[in-house]
Structure formats: structure tokens, C-alpha cells
């Protein structure tokens, strides 16, 4: 992949600060990152380090204070159909049924009713929600809402999927199921995925490449390939988690997350 691919994500020299009560508070220090098409990049870091900020910059919800975000060669100026976003809070529309939520993307592009219904059915089945297609989102549990949101994004067939701690609020069992589902979807579709998590285990288990961000202002302090979720690695999850390589990488990620810059004021550790 020497030439710039059409859907390569490039974050170049990005800094970002928020204005809080008249003061500029830095959230991202200096991020340089290129995500190749087909990568499943997991991004871990302590809460408040700027993970969401980075994702929102890539999504085009805001512009960086400094630097640039590009997809292919085009600078990101706003949200775009090629970048699907799975929000931390399931952002479904309560005035639409679950199915109508899932077929919203195709509907906006003027697809026929029948085509939309077929697409919706396919993705609702994929996430195991076929039987609640006619329900309203608020009639579903949090985990089901999150799955519906994922189905809505996938039904729109974006080349790049940005996911912000999508499984963060789920119970352990559902979470594990969805992790496996996500890996299967990724293997089947070859989509580019940026997956944010605060769980070390999740980052290492899912990623084809694992990033770790430092505490605020966020910088990328670890960037390593991981192979545990990649195709060909069809070992059952329990066995993967017992592999020495897995345990080893998980430890390195854990240490990287806990590492603190020496505090500016010299506060004792």
C-alpha cells in the first residue's frame, strides 16, 4: 500500500483544545496516525484522555485546533457517508421503529421500500434483533439499543466504522457475544474500524492493531500490531486469552495506560 488509498484515514499533526470558562484546555497533544483500509484499530486509554475527541475529529463533528484529518486525499470538513459512527450512547430516533432506524441510511439515498426492508432484515438478523424490528428503541434494553445502532451503521455500508466504547455499558456476557459478532462482521466485510475502549482486554482481543493514549492531553504512547482477532486465527476466545503472546501484549498495554507523565507541579506519585 504505497499510494494513498481512497479510504485511508490520516490524522496529521492534530492538536485540539477546548475552551472552558475562557481558558484553552488541551485535550489532544499531537496526534499523527494513519489507518490503513481493512485495519481494526483499537484505541485504549484512561477516561478523559481524549479518545472521544479524536473520534469526533475523524467523524467530522468538529475541526481540530491544529493539524488536519484526511480520508484518502480529501480533508474532512464534516460528517460523511463513508464514515459511520457508533456513539457511546445509542443514538437511535425514538419516533422511528427499530427497523425504520436501521433502514434510515438507505432511505435517505432514495432506495426502494423493498430494498430497504431487505437490507434492514439482513442486518437486524445479523445482530439478533429480527423479533423486535417493529418495536420503538426505548422499548429495548441498553444492549439491544446498542446492537440496533450497530445494525443501522452497517446497513448504510460505510467503508470506515468509528465506534466509541460501544460495549462499555453492557454486561459481561452480552459484551463478549458482541465482541465475537464484531470480529465476524469485520472478517466478512473487511471494513476499516476504529474502536475505542477503556478495557485493556477488549483492545487486545479485538484489535489488529492496538493504540494506547496517554492521560490528558492525549498522545499516542503505544502502537503495536495484534493478531488475535485477525482472519486465520480461528482459535476459540478462551484459548486466545490464554496464549502467552496475548498475555504479554495485554501486560504491555496495561503498563502503557497506567504510565503517567511526571506531573508539571511535581506532585508526589
Amino acid at each position, binding site marked *: 500500500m504505497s499510494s494513498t488509498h481512497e479510504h485511508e484515514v490520516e490524522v496529521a499533526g492534530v492538536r485540539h483544545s477546548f475552551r472552558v470558562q475562557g481558558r484553552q484546555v488541551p485535550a489532544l497533544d499531537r496526534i499523527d496516525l494513519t489507518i490503513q483500509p481493512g485495519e481494526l484499530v483499537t484505541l485504549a486509554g484512561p477516561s478523559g484522555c481524549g479518545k472521544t475527541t479524536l473520534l469526533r475529529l475523524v*467523524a467530522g*463533528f468538529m475541526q481540530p485546533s491544529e493539524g488536519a484529518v484526511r480520508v484518502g486525499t480529501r480533508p474532512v470538513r*464534516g*460528517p*460523511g*457517508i463513508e*464514515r*459511520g*459512527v457508533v*456513539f457511546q*450512547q445509542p*443514538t*437511535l*430516533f*425514538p*419516533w422511528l421503529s427499530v427497523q425504520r432506524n436501521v433502514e*434510515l*441510511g438507505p432511505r*435517505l*439515498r432514495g432506495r426502494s421500500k423493498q430494498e430497504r426492508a431487505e437490507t434492514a432484515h439482513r442486518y437486524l438478523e445479523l445482530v439478533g434483533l429480527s423479533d423486535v424490528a417493529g418495536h*420503538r*428503541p*426505548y422499548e429495548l434494553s441498553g444492549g439491544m439499543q446498542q446492537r440496533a445502532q450497530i445494525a*443501522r*451503521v452497517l446497513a*448504510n455500508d*460505510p467503508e470506515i466504522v468509528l465506534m466509541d466504547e460501544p460495549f462499555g455499558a453492557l454486561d459481561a456476557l452480552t459484551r463478549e457475544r458482541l465482541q465475537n459478532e464484531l470480529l465476524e462482521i469485520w472478517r466478512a466485510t473487511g471494513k476499516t474500524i476504529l474502536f475505542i475502549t477503556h478495557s485493556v482486554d477488549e483492545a487486545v482481543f479485538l484489535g489488529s492493531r492496538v493504540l494506547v493514549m496517554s492521560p490528558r492531553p492525549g498522545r499516542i504512547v503505544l502502537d503495536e500490531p495484534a493478531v488475535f482477532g485477525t482472519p486465520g486465527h480461528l482459535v476459540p476466545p478462551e484459548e486466545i486469552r490464554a496464549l502467552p503472546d496475548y498475555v504479554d501484549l495485554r501486560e504491555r498495554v496495561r503498563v502503557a495506560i497506567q504510565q503517567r507523565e511526571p506531573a508539571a507541579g511535581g506532585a508526589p506519585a
Partner: protein
Amino acid sequence: MLNQGARRAVLHATSLLGFLLLWWLVTHFELVRPLFLRGPGEVWDAFVRANTDHPISAGSDRMVRGEQNYYLWEHLLASLQRIAIGVGGGIVVGVPLGLVMGTTWLGTLLEPYLNFLRSLPPLAYIGLLIVWFGIGDTSKIWLLFLAAFPPITMATISGVRGVRDDQVNAVLSLGASRRQALTTVMLPATLPEVLTGIRVAVGFAWTTVVAAEIANGIPGIGGLAYLAGQQLQTALVLACILVIGLSAIALDLGLKSLEKALVPWRGKA
């Protein structure tokens, strides 16, 4: 054991009977002078008389229609019609205005004027409207329009400003144009507040129309109540008051159930 609904119904029925009994006792034993308060039976008679053709005076065979040549329900309908036109205009103007004010700098510019208009009791400017539009229906409808559109506009503004950014971001990421984002997200997300605004406006318009009909308000339920008072027909005044109050409650209940039907997600998402 009765269920809760039945117990409440019994409670309300008992208190209503108690009230009627007290009213009947007070008037039957003339604890209050009949000029000031008539009994339930006489009020009912006045109500029936006002809804039928009856002799102009006892023994005469010249028949008249209801009161002031209109049946009571026609008086009521006339007032309701004024409200419908006034509030209808308020919706047609208030909702688009609120959308524009909620999304652009026009909001900051125009909000003080809107607040000023809203804080005026409408009867304060009826004199001016009579000078402009005459004593007839036109000035009353303008009055109701001016009473109705500020609360509707304000509610729309607060609805628009309350739309979660991420709901808009979500639909833009699905590939929506700005116009599609407006129709598929902004409008439905604002609907609950708009409906509340309409309910407030109808209540406000109702009190306003009844008061405004003091001047040249026949047909009109407020006009009839005022005229009956001038002619010392206490029973008819009381009948009008009951009709005015019950209509207001019925209107509000009707709008409430409309809200329930149109925004079943209210308070749930």
C-alpha cells in the same frame, strides 16, 4: 377491592354530588340572595332554554331561537372557531419562526421582542387592534393570533435548542443533506415541545377570547356571559361559566391525548 381507577371515579362522583347538594341547599334556603346565586335546577333550565327555541315570554306564541338568536352551542362554537383560526395562524407562523430563530442569529435578535409581546396581557392591545381592524371579528382573531404565536414560537425555539447534537450528527453521518436532517431529525425531535406550546397557546387563547368578547362578542360564549350579566340573568351567567370551564378542560384533555398519540416516546428517550 376496587381498583385504583374505580376508586378515583367513586371519589370524584361523591365530591361532585356533595358540591351539587351544597349548592342546592344554599340556594334553596336562600342563604344567598337569588340575584347573586341561582340553584342547580334553574341553571340547568337556563342551559336547556339557551339550546332550544322557546316563547319570547310566558304565554306568548312568538318563538325565539336560543339566546340572542343563537343556540348556546352556537355561541360556544363561534368562540372555538375564533380560537382555531387564531391558534392555527399562530402555528403556521410560530413553528417556522421558532425553527429559524432556534438555529440562526435571528433568535438572539428577535427574542427580546418576542418576550415583550408575550409578557403583555393581550387585552392591553385590543384597543389598538380595534382602531386598526374595527370592532368586528378581525380584531379578535388578530388578538388571538398575537396571544397564541409567542408561546408556540418560544416552545419551538426551546425544542430546537434541546435537540441533541449527536442526533443531528448521527443522521448527517448516515449521509443526510442539511434539508434531510431538518425533516428527519430536527422536526420530529422538536415535536413534543411544539405540542406543549400549542397546548399552552390554546389555554391562553381561551381565556383571552372569553374576555375579548365583552366588546361586540355575539355570537360568542364570553359575549353571552357578559350580556347575560348585564341583564341580571344570573342563571344564564352561571350556565355560561360552567360551559366555559368545562370546554377549557375538555380542550386540554383532547390536546393531551393528541400529544400521547403523536409523541409516544415523550419522557422515555
